[in-house]
């Protein structure tokens, strides 16, 4: 997928960092000033996404940038709602990497379309991009042009492997939720969603929730979507609006929810599951790139243990592998063995261009 990956800590990129006739994906941490990106030649394409932080080896950076030069066989596209361009480009695709604005209300629509059009053995991984500092700056751009109302997708003809897990555990439920605009829970069990959530946290954990601490509380006590399988997709409450809960991800209009609990101990287990998933029983891995998508919430819950998680991943997958990644606001991981979903608080590990 990537032929060359370069890390730029606090550095301003200049024009000669980019070659003509090549395409780059820049993953910028939110405190990296993307306004300093150089004007490149007309034949160079620069896609840029902004995320809360980037990961280089086992370290997290909030003001750095990772520049990925796309391999010749990899295509990158910005797809709008109907994804017409995508449909034409999927013939020989084996791996998909997808980036979407985490506040976009059409995420399920994009996922449905992407899943529908990709082949039966394609792996899809991806992330919700965005900022946590509240600044209203572009999230996705292409040669400085702002990209809205769609998603960036990279298509590679080479296979990849993915493993993912969140580690959050079921605590109480289930409840019936009514939603609006995809990511707003209006009511739960007939009560205003925020009132219900506040009541449940007080009752079960003696925690006081308010509009200021909602995100940190939401990370510790996320909501789980009712579904079959080993782990329920999570929806982390991240804000309050008119008594509605804003969650980090899409939901159907009628959903069942449960109260989950994320502890440092439970989350730390997740990375091992993700590593096991991506290894698939192989001791030797023939890949050079390990791309990590770590939910921003994991860092906030794990605090200092988060660096241990990154170090453990690097250690367990081997130093020969090139480790890099991003902190995300929502994760996508699908190996075509079940229907595609959007996750929260997950650790997703992808071995890019790895043989099956």
């Amino acid at each position, binding site marked *: 997928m990537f032929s060359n990956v370069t890390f730029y800590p606090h550095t301003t990129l200049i024009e000669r960092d980019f070659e003509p006739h090549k395409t780059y994906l820049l993953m910028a941490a939110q405190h990296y000033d993307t306004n300093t990106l150089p004007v490149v030649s007309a034949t160079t394409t620069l896609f840029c996404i902004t995320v809360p932080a980037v990961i280089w080896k086992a370290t997290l950076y909030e003001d750095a940038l990772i520049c990925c030069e796309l391999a010749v066989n990899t295509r990158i596209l910005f797809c709008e709602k109907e994804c017409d361009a995508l449909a034409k480009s999927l013939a020989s695709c084996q791996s998909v990497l997808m980036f979407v604005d985490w506040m976009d209300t059409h995420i399920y629509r994009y996922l449905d379309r992407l899943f529908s059009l990709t082949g039966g053995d394609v792996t899809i991984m991806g992330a919700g991009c965005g900022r946590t500092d509240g600044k209203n700056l572009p999230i996705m751009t292409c040669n400085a042009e702002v990209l809205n109302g769609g998603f960036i997708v990279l298509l590679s003809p080479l296979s990849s492997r993915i493993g993912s897990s969140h580690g959050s555990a079921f605590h109480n439920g289930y409840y019936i939720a009514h939603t609006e605009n995809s990511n707003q829970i209006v009511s739960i069990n007939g009560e205003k969603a925020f009132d219900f959530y506040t009541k449940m946290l007080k009752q079960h954990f003696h925690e006081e929730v308010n509009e200021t601490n909602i995100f940190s509380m939401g990370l510790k006590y996320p909501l789980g979507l009712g579904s079959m*399988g080993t782990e329920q997709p999570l929806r982390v409450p991240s804000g309050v609006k008119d008594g509605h809960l804003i969650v980090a991800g899409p939901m159907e209009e*009628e959903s069942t929810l449960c109260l989950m609990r994320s502890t440092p101990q439970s989350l730390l287990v997740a990375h091992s599951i993700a590593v096991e998933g991506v290894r698939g029983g192989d001791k030797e891995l023939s890949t050079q790139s390990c791309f990590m998508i770590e939910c921003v919430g994991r860092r906030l819950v794990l605090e200092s243990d988060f660096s241990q998680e990154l170090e453990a991943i690097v250690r367990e997958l081997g130093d020969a592998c090139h480790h890099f990644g991003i902190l995300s606001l929502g994760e996508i991981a699908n190996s075509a063995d079940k229907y595609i979903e959007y996750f929260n608080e997950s650790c997703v590990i992808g071995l890019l261009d790895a043989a099956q």
Partner: protein
Amino acid sequence: MQLNEQLLITYECVSSVGTSLDLKTMIEHFLKVFSRKTGSMASVYWQFNPQKKDFEPLCFYGKRSFSTMLVLPTEPMENYTIVYDAKSDKERLHVNVAGDWIVFLFHAKQNDVGFMKAIINSFSGKLENAIHACKNHLELLEMNENLAKKVHEEVEKNRQKDQHILQQSRLAQMGEMISMIAHQWRQPLGSISAVVAGLKLKLLLNRFDLESVEGREAHKQFTNESLHKIEEYVRFLTNTIDDFRNFFKPDKQQERISLEKLVNRTLEIIGKALEINGINVKVSVQTSNEILTYTNEMTQVILNILKNAEDVIKERNIPHAQIGITIFEKENEQYLEIEDNAGGIHEEILPHIFEPYFSTKQEKNGTGLGLYMSKIIVEDHCQGSIFATNTIFGAKFSIILKKEDA
């Protein structure tokens, strides 16, 4: 925990059933929710087509590359059957509902398909009812569409019938017009004939001494006077033709005119015929305010009523025959009343006189369309009203038209 999961997934799937009366929309939504909740990678709804006696895919959801695996049962099977495909290591769940088949595809290792079967079985009744409701709704829509088509056809037939009636009415009116022209022309033609006869007679009897200057002068004067008279009569004949020709032109635009002028214009056409038949016409005008109306069409209406009165008067040999025309204004309306003294209309036929093809004078070429057309003109074209009543002397027709500023 598993019971809990089953309940909640059942709840969400049940909620997704019956959200639309369009079968495709409803099933698409159901397949979407079911796939998201159970992990089904692809699903298809096979609908039975009774005309083709075969199943056709109505909608598909999930990975398109798996669509070829979502096949119909090749042999008879129970309504809820799981089929394992060893080659692809996938399981199909076949569900027969409302005579159609839904086929779901699962990854064999990742999913407990037996559990999914139990879930969908638990709300099969609702799913079946919802599908039947959609199908019934579609039938109803088709019936409504056919009904709408039929109504359209009938309306078209009626329109053609109306056009036919209008045409007949025009032909009838033309017949009456020719009769009226004949009346109008009889007197001037007679006069021309008399002048010519007088001229011929005087010439025959050598009443002029053409040898003398006085005789030649008298002859010249008499000839000039005769020719002048003939010229006057010819002008009258020409005017009569112009009046009728204008009358037959259809109005495209409304004109501002007083009812008095309309009545006078009509009397210019029919007045002579009435006079010849000894019918005295009295016009009483209480307002000269103008209204906005289709003048030729309204003339046709007045003419119809006057012609009917003339016919009845002649038929009943009414002595001292009279027609009274009154024009007055009340509030926002102007009234035109035409009353005769011919004894009135029989009470049993009074409610029917404005119906098409209703006539009391069939033997005398009555078409039964005159009053029907009059009603159409007054009520549909001019937004007014027309009705008939009996007075102690005869019949009275009242036309009510809105004033321009009303």
